[in-house]
């Protein structure tokens, strides 16, 4: 049972990396800062490194969110299995439908749903849930967005140059930010490793504790860290083909200076949160930054309808994954047969969704990252091009 759960956790980790490659590398590829293949390889390596840097987030999940150990409720590997199943299914479904969602929230939702069904409402520590999961989920994208807005303004203000005599604009060399983007997007990949890879580590540690292989309250073991780091790096590398395929379909209009500001604030926000053990959604933070930096440019207008769609996806993820997790936990309650039923149903659904994704056409709608969807929230009026068109 424990082995099965760990295998499923690695699969989740893989899908997570797969899902999120685009977050870090879509913008620098779009601005031409780095070629797709090296970008994807770089992201994979940095995810691997990031996973080793800090394990605070793993500790939040393995010790705190759900009352485990002798004093609390008995968490069984079967419940964690159900929770993971909920997360994986929801992740695949949203990926298939092209809905913006967060793999982190899917994971928490699944676990919480399974814990409530398996052990009652008292099994979840709501204060930890609020202060380390829900509040960071709401605040971190906001913080990242506001900071990205300010940073974009700063970057443009510092590089704006006028001729002192004629007052005309001078050449500004903002293309120089393109090289900076290689580094800032690498930082995002690193930050992703310090936050997202930790989540799987936390879950596996939770399983090991519940299966009495490890003492309650201890951090992740070394082999767990190594394996999780490898899984997310592999997933990141495998996810690369999506970016390469969608490059032709036209990404959001992002300028190098803007992209640099957005990525720097994303990385800073994630790294700061990881350090305090906040398990936030890297996807949402990156989306917040992209929106913020878009607003920092002149002539930016918010498309409220798209913004609403993105926000709805965010709100829906946790409860939806909780429901799937709860159903799976209910089935797992029936004993061994229930667990087998869960595993078979899960495998069939995942396989079916994978087949479906193969069949359907990969286009802008279902293959571009969530961050890119967020980027569409902001509409930049292109005065120059419009004026030029009229002039003709």
């Amino acid at each position: 049972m424990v082995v099965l759960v760990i295998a499923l956790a690695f699969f989740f980790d893989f899908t997570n990396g797969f899902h999120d490659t685009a977050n870090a590398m879509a913008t620098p590829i779009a601005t031409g800062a780095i070629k797709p293949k090296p970008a994807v390889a770089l992201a994979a390596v940095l995810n691997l490194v990031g996973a080793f840097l800090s394990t605070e987030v793993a500790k939040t999940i393995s010790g705190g969110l759900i009352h485990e150990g002798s004093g609390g409720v008995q968490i069984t590997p079967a419940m964690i299995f159900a929770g993971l199943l909920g997360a994986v299914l929801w992740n695949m479904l949203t990926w298939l439908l092209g809905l913006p969602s967060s793999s982190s929230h899917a994971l928490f939702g699944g676990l919480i749903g399974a814990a409530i069904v398996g052990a009652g409402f008292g099994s979840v520590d709501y204060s930890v849930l609020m202060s380390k999961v829900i509040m960071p989920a709401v605040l971190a994208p906001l913080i990242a967005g506001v900071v990205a807005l300010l940073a974009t303004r700063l970057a443009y203000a510092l590089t704006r140059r006028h001729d002192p005599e004629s007052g005309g604009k001078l050449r500004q060399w903002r293309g120089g930010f393109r090289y900076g983007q290689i580094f800032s997007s690498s930082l995002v990949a690193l930050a992703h490793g310090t936050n997202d890879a930790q989540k799987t580590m936390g879950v596996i540690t939770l399983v090991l504790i519940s299966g009495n292989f490890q003492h309650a309250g201890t951090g992740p073991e070394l082999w767990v860290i190594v394996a999780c780091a490898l899984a997310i790096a592999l997933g990141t590398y495998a996810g690369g083909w999506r970016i390469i395929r969608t490059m032709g379909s036209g990404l959001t209009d992002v300028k190098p200076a803007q992209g640099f500001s957005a990525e720097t604030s994303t990385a800073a926000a994630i790294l700061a949160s990881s350090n305090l053990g906040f398990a936030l959604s890297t996807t949402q933070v990156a989306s917040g930054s992209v929106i913020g930096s878009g607003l920092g440019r002149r002539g930016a207008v918010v498309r409220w309808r798209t913004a609403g769609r993105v926000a709805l996806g965010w709100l829906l993820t946790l409860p939806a994954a909780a429901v799937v997790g709860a159903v799976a936990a209910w089935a797992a309650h029936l004993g061994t047969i229930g667990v087998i039923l869960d595993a078979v149903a899960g495998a069939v659904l995942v396989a079916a969704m994978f087949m479906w994704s193969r069949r359907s056409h990969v286009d802008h709608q279902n293959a571009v990252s969530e961050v890119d969807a967020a980027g569409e929230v902001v509409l930049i009026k292109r005065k120059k091009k419009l004026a030029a068109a009229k002039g003709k």
Partner: protein
Amino acid sequence: MNINWISFLIVAGATLFSTAVVVGLYALGVRLYAISAERPAERRLHRLAGYGCFAACALAVLYGVYLIIPSFHK
């Protein structure tokens, strides 16, 4: 319900500060580089100052990464 608001303030402050430092230094470097292309007389001075900004920016990033790795602070 016990929510630690101070830690959110820390996250917000740290994010704002570090982003401002990194983006500010980089932008300054870009500007200096742009100036160096226009004034051949002082090209080396401006270019050196520009590289100095980029280097300071890189150092700031490395220091930030150093700060968040717990194994350096035990």
